[in-house]
């Protein structure tokens, strides 16, 4: 029997404590808990409980106090893992995607992908407010009709990596496509446009982007009602 396991654990949305602080929290909590238990009595119990909470906070990465006051020391990362079945053969889907310049056709948050050479490309994403976030990316691995993996090059506005896998879907249903993408903040701080971009990317948006990709591959267009006529009362 094959057991289903998500191949990429999704980043817990609720984690608001950074990794080094989590480690510190666990260590300090463990020390306090051990001391409190050894001391006994009421003061000792309070220390043990506080230590216990710190250990819990460190191990889950969740801090209630941080949440209340709206602080997060966790690195923001957006991790996306989505799949879609497209009723076309693998080689068609692969070659459309391998021409990275096609990506803005269906990924609306990507404004432009300029192919530099066989491996390298320049990406421009638009964040809300018309601000652009740019990076250079390099294809780090590929196998025809199987997968394409890419990663942003150092000194980019944003750290990004992605992989798209292609396989023949069972039951003559065309191609199963899986996309995995990560957007990380480079280093510690993040510029306002990068934060805005990350805030705007959602699972729903990525699902919609894959839906558009499927629509283009299956029907040759993205069906729309934008711009169609409708009744408007005078003055509306």
């Amino acid at each position, binding site marked *: 029997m094959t057991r289903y396991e998500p191949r990429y654990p999704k980043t817990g949305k609720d984690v608001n404590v950074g990794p080094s602080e989590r480690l510190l929290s666990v260590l300090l909590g463990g020390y306090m808990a051990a001391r409190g238990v050894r001391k006994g009595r009421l003061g000792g119990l309070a220390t043990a409980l506080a230590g216990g909470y710190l250990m819990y906070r460190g191990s889950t990465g969740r801090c209630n106090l941080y949440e209340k006051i709206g602080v997060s020391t966790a690195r923001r990362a957006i991790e996306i893992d989505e799949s879609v*079945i497209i*009723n076309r053969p693998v080689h068609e889907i692969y070659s459309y995607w391998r021409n990275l310049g096609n990506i803005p056709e269906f990924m609306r948050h990507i404004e432009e992908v300029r192919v530099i050479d066989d491996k390298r490309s320049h990406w421009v994403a638009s964040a809300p407010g018309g601000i652009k976030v740019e990076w250079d990316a390099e294809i780090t691995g590929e196998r025809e009709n199987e997968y394409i993996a890419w990663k942003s090059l150092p000194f980019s506005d944003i750290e990004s990596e992605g992989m798209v896998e292609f396989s023949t879907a069972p039951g003559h*249903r*065309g191609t199963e496509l899986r996309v995995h993408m990560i957007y990380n903040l480079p280093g510690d701080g993040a510029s306002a446009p990068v934060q805005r971009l990350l805030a705007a990317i959602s699972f*729903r948006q990525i*699902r*919609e982007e894959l*839906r558009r990709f*499927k*629509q283009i591959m*299956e*029907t*040759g*267009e993205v*069906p*729309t*009602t*934008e*711009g*169609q*006529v*409708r*009744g*408007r*009362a005078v003055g*509306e």
Partner: protein
Amino acid sequence: MKALCWYGKRDLRVMEVPEPEILGPRDAIVRVSLSAVCGSDLHLYNGHVPSMERGDILGHEFVGTVVDVGGRVEGFRPGDRVAVPFTISCGRCFFCERELWSLCDNSNPNAYAAEALYGYSPAGIYGYSHLFGGYAGGQAEYVRVPFADSGLLKLPESVSDEKAVLLCDVFPTGYMAAENCSIQEGDTVAVWGAGPVGLLAMKSASLLGAERVIAIDRFPERLGLASRLADAVALNYEDVDVDEALRDITGGMGPDACIDAVGMEAHGKGHGRVYDAVKNKLRAETDRPTALRQAILACRKGGTVSIAGAYAGYVDKVPVGAAFNKGITIKGGQTHVQKYMPRLLNLVEDGKADPSDVITHSFGLEEGPIAYEVFKHKEDGCVKVVLKP
């Protein structure tokens, strides 16, 4: 152009709006020569279908003439006289390839909204809320038809607009409802609702080999029509206990198949009616499934319940225990119109069926708001209304 627009619950207005334009390479623009009002339009009119917006153009049954086509339309050109199925289907996805046209993967631009309610999105439908794409409908002078090659049926000269307009929805819907009953020679089929779909389901059941058809309604004119057009045994549920009557007619066995051609706004009587009315008011239940409950309870062991009336959301107190323990098959769904249109057109052309005898009223498009009222209240023996732009 003139168009009939939804402005709120029981508020329709005839508006002057711009003419539609080609938006995609597979679009066509059709000048409407006749449109019809469907029972499911009444669900919109009565405010039962979520996600309607002020100004939406109604109508999903219409015939007309192609006046313009996009660059990638192959099979149609200006001047072609056509009927338009209410389901908008791309013709290229998994579902379209299997003739499950109303389940098209690609034609609903608001698929995410439908997914939130249904898990997966069905096809887009003209003038049938934003859950089904928010497409402008055909109760207008002109309409935009996406995916024209898989969404138009060419009409021969010999078939009138009145006959053809019924091929867009109600005749295929009635026919699919009967086909879903897997009728064997000699079967008895009971049909709840003697409106246009119910009447055409009765006719289709006979065409498919049913020996006896039973019509259940509360309007004597409609029951009269059922007897006259489909040779049905008429049951008025306000006068008789339906369950008892069906048992009696079928020698205690129950009908082999039961068709619910009523859908979400069933009236019924007794406790169920009060229960649903209260839950509707509290918004704890979207639809009123009185007919569906009766159909499941009345159906014979191992029989089929076929749902042709539209349901939108959630219903309560559906007797699943009866369905399970009697081994009943339940089938339903929006009609896969493109699958049935050609063969039904043949029946009409050969004179083997004339669906237009359910049309009782005709209005001008500008009288649309009146037409809806007449249809809703079944005034003057109204069964089916058509609108002439």
